[in-house]
């Protein structure tokens, strides 16, 4: 495990971070900045969901419901009641964490497909309620979501805010996956029975991760609604859930960078390549199928493998040199006996 020294690869990582921070100074086009902010907001959700889907192997296809709750919390508290947007973002995270707890508590006990279907139903129910509870959500007309105050309200300021939040969430998930917790999550994904038999608290671990993903979905929802500036129930359709889910699977389960690249590429690609926009969701389906059939570990792992193949193999020289002195001493000792 020589490769896991914490400083290895720090330079490109630092450069990457710096490039992301300096992005608004380089990119003058507000549309590209908007796209980058959108990717950031989605990534905050996907980073949390990645722990659920990619690491723990719980296939949640209903996170759009949590995103919607976060967005509406923000639009209602910060927009209608004039709360401080930063505080509201935190509150949205907490509210969605609670929702995640309430949803996860029963449904995480269910087997795979049952769990996937419960989350699907949850997503549908949230949108249905968003339309029905007009006095709260504005019904079909929806709600305007306020901007953040002062410099955070400008496109670059808001981008930096999202970047900071995304960086924090990424750092948190990265820490989780590096240490014992992350290992136990992977163990749950690969074999729940084996995990339980070596003392991993399976249900508690699953629930904790799911609640965490709820918190990130809430924060993402708050930022997303401010970015969109207006939210309606139509925004939170099932395909969006599918999009998050596919980003993770395509990027690669059990990795952080893979899903990030997945989110970025899947968000940007239909914008830049018009024919793909026409195919829309069909394209997501096709990508998902190809990845599952050809590289079930995700495109990220494939890239990784290619890089590993291109890199000159590290040959470690372990010269086998007998320690003749000790051998002689031992032989002598044996002979004496």
């Amino acid at each position, binding site marked *: 495990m020589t490769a896991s020294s914490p400083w290895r690869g720090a330079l490109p990582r630092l450069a990457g971070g710096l490039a992301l921070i300096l992005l608004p100074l380089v990119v003058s086009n507000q549309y590209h900045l908007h796209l980058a902010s959108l990717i950031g907001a989605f990534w905050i959700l996907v980073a949390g969901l990645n722990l659920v889907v990619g690491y723990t192997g719980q*296939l949640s296809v209903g996170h759009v419901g949590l995103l919607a709750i976060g967005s509406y919390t923000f639009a209602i508290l910060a927009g209608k009641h004039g709360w401080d947007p930063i505080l509201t973002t935190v509150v949205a995270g907490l509210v969605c964490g609670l929702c995640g707890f309430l949803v996860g508590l029963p449904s995480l006990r269910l087997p795979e497909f*049952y769990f996937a*279907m419960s989350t699907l139903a949850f997503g*549908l129910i949230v949108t249905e309620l968003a339309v*029905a509870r007009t006095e709260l959500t504005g019904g079909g007309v929806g709600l305007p979501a306020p901007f953040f105050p002062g410099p955070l309200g400008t496109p670059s300021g808001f981008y930096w805010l999202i970047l900071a939040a995304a960086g924090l969430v990424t750092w948190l998930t990265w820490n989780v996956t590096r240490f014992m917790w992350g290992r136990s999550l992977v163990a749950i994904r690969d074999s729940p029975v084996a995990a339980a038999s070596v003392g991993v608290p399976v249900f508690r671990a699953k629930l904790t991760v799911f609640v965490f993903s709820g918190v990130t979905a809430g924060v993402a929802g708050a930022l997303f609604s401010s970015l969109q500036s207006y939210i309606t129930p139509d925004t939170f359709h099932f395909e969006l859930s599918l999009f998050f889910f596919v980003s993770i699977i395509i990027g690669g389960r059990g990795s952080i960078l893979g899903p990030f690249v997945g989110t970025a590429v899947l968000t940007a690609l239909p914008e830049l390549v018009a024919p793909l926009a026409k195919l829309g969701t*069909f394209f997501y389906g096709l990508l998902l199928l190809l990845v*599952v059939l050809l590289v079930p570990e995700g495109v990220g792992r494939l890239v990784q493998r290619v890089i590993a193949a291109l890199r000159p193999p590290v040959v470690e020289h372990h010269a086998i040199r007998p320690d003749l002195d000790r051998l002689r001493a031992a032989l002598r000792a044996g002979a004496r006996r």
Partner: protein
Amino acid sequence: MLIVLVTGLAIGSLYAMMGLVYNVMYSTSKVLSMTTGHLAMLGAVFGAWFMGGLGWPIWLGLPAAAAVGAAFGLLTDVVAIRRVITRSNEHLWLLSTLAVATMVQQAVGLWWGTEPRPFPRLVPQDPAGALDQKYWLPIVLVLLMAAGLGLFYRKTMFGKVFVAMSEDAFAARARGIATNRVRAMSYVISGALGAVAGFATGQLTYAFFAVGTLLTLNGFVALAVGGLGSNMGALVGGWALGIISMVASHYFGGEYQQTIAIGLLMLALLVRPQGIFGTRQVRAV
């Protein structure tokens, strides 16, 4: 109130048929396919196209629609199941069937259009209120389908092979059963059944590209409540779901229809996770 129950029963029969389709696929592959609801969508859309668009008579349109479903079932097996199922138990099948389901829905949307289109009447009958064919067709069909599947499992060689595979696929394989071929067969049968189900309910759902996802969900809820693997369970669960959602809509309007129906049934699932007619699986290892 009669019409509420009849409508609920008819829609519930569609859910129950989806449950049966799940069961057929599950018996040989232990896979719950996300494409299940889309089979009914294909049946309705192609039925409408063959009969309404091309003007074929029912004795040609019905088998043709069933054939489309069967072909799609086979395609699902070849593309999404065969390659994936042999790899560890990572539940990759959920992803691959989800991918196929998404693609077929979008493809049909692009080709057929996103507006619902009419489905022709199948039996010469004047509109007859609660006794209309759009209600009794699915109700009769689900009973026929359940009875037929029962006979098939109990009386035919092929059916017994299915049962053997669902009991223990390894043992069946050891006794010389070509499990791959049997599984493909079960997907063909389920495809045809799903398409026929959609065909029979076409007058209720119209030929609409987007009904699949909701049918996948509702058919599964019906089956989960009734008990996975049990055809009786699919029937009871489907009817319960259909009637509850119609009654909910009757008393509370359409705004909370989903929430009430699915919420209630999820609750039932938490109380009895194996379903009404299901058997608890104790073997986790």
